[in-house]
């Protein structure tokens, strides 16, 4: 049998089976669609459509209570770029990222290391370190408002024992941001601790045993074995911290409402206030769409870096 024959035979069978095949192909597609449809509908209505609409709204001046909208083009964006509060909020969001990456994640790592050391009562430490992460953010905010209370709050009472005068932590424009950031560290360090713990379980004991035989001390073991093994987790954590910082809202809204002044304003609180308090829905939509764009750019950047890293990983044996 030569090639022509094979081809023609193939064609023949194709012709014969094409009708039921198309039918089964259609059935398969229908099945796939039926499975995905509920998710697709909900996702389209509540995620995709709103993002497009947010951009649309951002081109108008309107209050949200009245249905009339005045088309203003990019005016809201021009105004936004000249708005010092917007830049202040963005700067505060960046502060959250920096504190997450340089305080929270290292602290989580230290906590995980403690839990992996030969310390007594590790189980107790394990549970107590983790507990803050189990509380709802609103409850955490309200708890810490009281912790920071200028008169009765435990923070000032402890300071008082050591002879310091009381401080109005959340009402002081200079201290407010730091005070809230401490609470964020309190809430999320345990999360990174758990991630590191999970990664540390995966490091093979043989590596440490071999290092012991070579006479390595614990510092060497940390630098040459533990840290390199945890690198992927550190990268993942940093990505989560960057992306997560844009989502910050609850703790700032509860504890300071962005104040005093705009000292603790972040993009989320500013957007909420402009939209739902000042009823500048168009302007708020512009802030919201900027938040989307920033998130989008960050995610694309991360993907590109990840792709480059993987490509390099493939080239080097």
């Amino acid at each position: 049998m030569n090639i022509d024959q094979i081809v023609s035979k193939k064609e023949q069978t194709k012709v014969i089976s094409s009708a039921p095949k198309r039918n089964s192909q259609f059935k398969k597609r229908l099945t796939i669609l039926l499975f995905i449809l509920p998710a697709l509908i909900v996702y389209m209505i509540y995620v995709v459509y709103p993002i497009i609409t947010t951009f649309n709204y951002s081109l108008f001046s309107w209050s949200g209570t009245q249905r009339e909208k005045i088309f203003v083009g990019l005016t809201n964006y021009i105004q936004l770029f000249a708005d010092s509060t917007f830049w202040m909020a963005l700067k505060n969001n960046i502060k959250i990222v920096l504190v997450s990456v340089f305080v929270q994640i290292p602290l989580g790592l230290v906590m995980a290391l403690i839990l992996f050391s030969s310390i007594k009562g590790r189980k107790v430490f394990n549970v107590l370190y983790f507990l803050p992460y189990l509380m709802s953010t609103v409850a955490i905010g309200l708890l810490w408002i009281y912790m920071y209370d200028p008169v009765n709050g435990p923070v000032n009472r402890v300071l008082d024992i050591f002879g310091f005068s009381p401080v109005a932590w959340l009402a002081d424009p200079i201290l407010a941001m730091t005070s809230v950031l401490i609470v964020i560290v309190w809430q999320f360090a345990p999360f990174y601790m758990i991630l590191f713990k999970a990664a540390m379980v995966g490091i093979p004991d043989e590596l440490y045993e071999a290092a012991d035989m070579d006479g390595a001390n614990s510092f060497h073991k940390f630098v040459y074995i533990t840290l390199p093994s945890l690198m992927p987790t550190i990268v993942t954590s940093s990505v989560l911290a960057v992306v997560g910082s844009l989502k910050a809202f609850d703790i700032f809204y509860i504890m300071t409402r962005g104040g005093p002044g705009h000292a603790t304003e972040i993009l989320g609180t500013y957007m909420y206030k402009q939209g739902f308090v000042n009823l500048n829905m168009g302007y708020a939509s512009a802030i919201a769409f900027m938040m989307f764009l920033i998130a989008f750019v960050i995610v694309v950047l991360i993907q590109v870096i990840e792709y480059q890293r993987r490509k390099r990983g493939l080239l080097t044996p």
Partner: protein
Amino acid sequence: MNLMDIVKKVILYTLAIVLLFFTGYPFLYMIGTSFKSLNSFFESPLSIIPSQPTFEQYVSVFEMGLTRYFVNSILITVVSVIGIVFISALASYPLSRMSFKLNRPLLLFFVAGMMLPIHATLIPIFILTQDMGIYDTLWALLGPYIAFSLPVSIFILTQFMQEVPKELEEAAYIDGCGHFSIFWRIMLPLVVPAISTIVIYNFVFLWTEFIFALVLLSSPENMTLPLGLQNFYSEFSINIPGLMAALTLASLPILLLFVIAQNKVVKGLTGGAVKG
């Protein structure tokens, strides 16, 4: 044991205990204070162990209407989680097990939602909810809650479903099972661990969800717990033990979950973070 070892031990224990104080004290303070009477609170405000434990704060918290918020939160959380499990499991099945052209792009399209700041959707959802006539009802939360839980749920489920051996499906197919019965009788029972992960993850996320509730609800009788707590605060700002009782109660379901299934909760909470 040489001097170096002792120094190391001292540093380690000091660090561990300082951190213990930082993480543990506020938390234990909240629980301890909630069992104090107002008088004993003023006598020793810094202690975490009440001298004469009392439940009076819990009683007054319920009398002030916390029950309503509790019931609302339980209702919306349970209904949403059931919806999320069902819808995300359905979608994950073809995305991970059936090959078609849009497999990867669709999965990416869903999972991309994980990176999205909720604020970017807030105003349109607010308007949409009013247009649908469900503003200020618990129904208003159902759509956003399910939609914003889909990305992480689909992400976890597809990862898990990919691991299931092909032979099981093929055997069922030969026995005459359709896709739906394969999904229902074979796939779902096999991915129960992943389902428990997404149940825990979404339960915690929705139990503490604040911003959608803030924007979509307005009357106190419709409020969920996080939103209600906030209102509560103004009334309780003088009665600190009462406030602490309310905060403890609000955290209780997750705490209980943690006590019952510690490892599962840890896995669930970190489920969206670590690639499987």
